[in-house]
C-alpha cells in the first residue's frame, strides 16, 4: 500500500504498523525525541506497535530542531 510520510509517498506492506514504518526509516521504536501524527492526530508512543496504517494515510514523523 501507499502512504504519505512527511509529504512523500512510500510503499509499505498492507497492514504495516507505525513501528514498521519507523523501522523502514531507520528509526527505532525506542528512539527518543520523536513524535508521530497520523491524518492530523497524534499517535502516542505506546500505541505505535499496535497502530496499523491504512492506504493513503498521511503520516508525519517529527523531531526537535532549532527554533523559536
Amino acid at each position: 500500500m501507499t502512504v504519505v510520510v512527511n509529504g512523500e509517498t512510500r510503499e509499505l506492506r498492507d497492514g504495516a504498523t507505525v513501528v514498521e514504518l519507523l523501522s523502514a526509516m531507520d528509526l527505532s521504536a525506542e528512539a527518543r525525541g520523536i513524535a508521530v501524527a497520523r491524518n492530523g492526530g497524534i499517535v502516542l508512543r505506546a500505541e505505535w506497535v499496535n497502530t496499523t496504517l491504512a492506504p493513503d494515510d498521511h503520516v508525519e514523523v517529527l523531531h526537535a530542531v532549532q527554533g523559536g
Partner: protein
Amino acid sequence: MRSRAAERDDDLVIAGEHFRSRLILGTGGAPSHDILEDAVLASGTEIVTVAMRRITRSGAGSVLDVVERTGCRVLPNTAGCYTARDAVVTARLAREALETKWIKLEVIADERTLLPEPVDLLDAAEQLVEDGFVVLPYANDDPVLAHRLEDVGCAAVMPLGAPIGSGSGIRNPYNLRIILERARVPVILDAGVGTASDAAIAMELGCAGVLVASAITRAEKPVLMAEAIRKAVEAGRLAHLAGRIPQRLYAEASTAWEGIADLTAHTG
C-alpha cells in the same frame, strides 16, 4: 553584604520551578550546533526553545544533544501554527517527543508580521491548560489579551516588544507597563530585542525575564552577543530592584544648597 546575598536569591520562578537566569534563549537561526552551544553557555540561560519539524536524514547531530550537554530545560514551541487546532496538536506531539509538559505557545496570524492571532491563541491556551500543560504564550503587547491568558491559567505571559526578528526593541513601553502592573504571573518579553540595551530596558520596566533568539543567533558574533545580553538582563534586573529616580524636565541638584559660601567680592 546582606543585600548582595538577597540579590543572589532573586530567582525567576515559573510554575513553581526556579531559575537563576532570567534569559531564555531561542535557538532558531544559529549558524551551527557548535556556535549555539557556546552561545547557550555564554548566555547563562537555563531554558532553551526548540521547534518540531519533519525528521530528515542528516548527520548534523541533534539540537537535543546541545540541550543535554548544557543541562538546560527544553521548551518546545508551536512555531508555524496558524490555528488553535494545529497548535494544540503540535504541543501534544512535542510533549510526546520531549517528555515535557511545558510549551511555548505560538499561533501566528500571517507570515509577513508573524504577529500572534489572539483569538486562536486564547482558545489553544485554554485547551492546553485543561490538558495539563504549562503554557507560556507568545502574545501581542495587549493588556487585555495578557489578562485573559492569565485568567485561563497560563503560567506566564510573553508579550512581544516588536515583531519577531525585527530587532526594533520595545515599540510600546506604555502597553508593556500596563501589562506588568496588572500581571500576577511572570511577564517575559518575547520578540523584538535587537541588542543588549533592549533587554536591559525590558528588565528595568519590570519584566521577569526576556526571551531572545535572533538578536543572539543572527548577530555577527553570537557568542559575544549572548554574553552582552546576559549582562544586560542582569543589569536591568538590578536596576529594577534598585528603584530608579523619577524622570524630570529640569535639573535636580545633587549637592545641598545649605552652607554655600558667600563669594561676593565685598569691598570694605
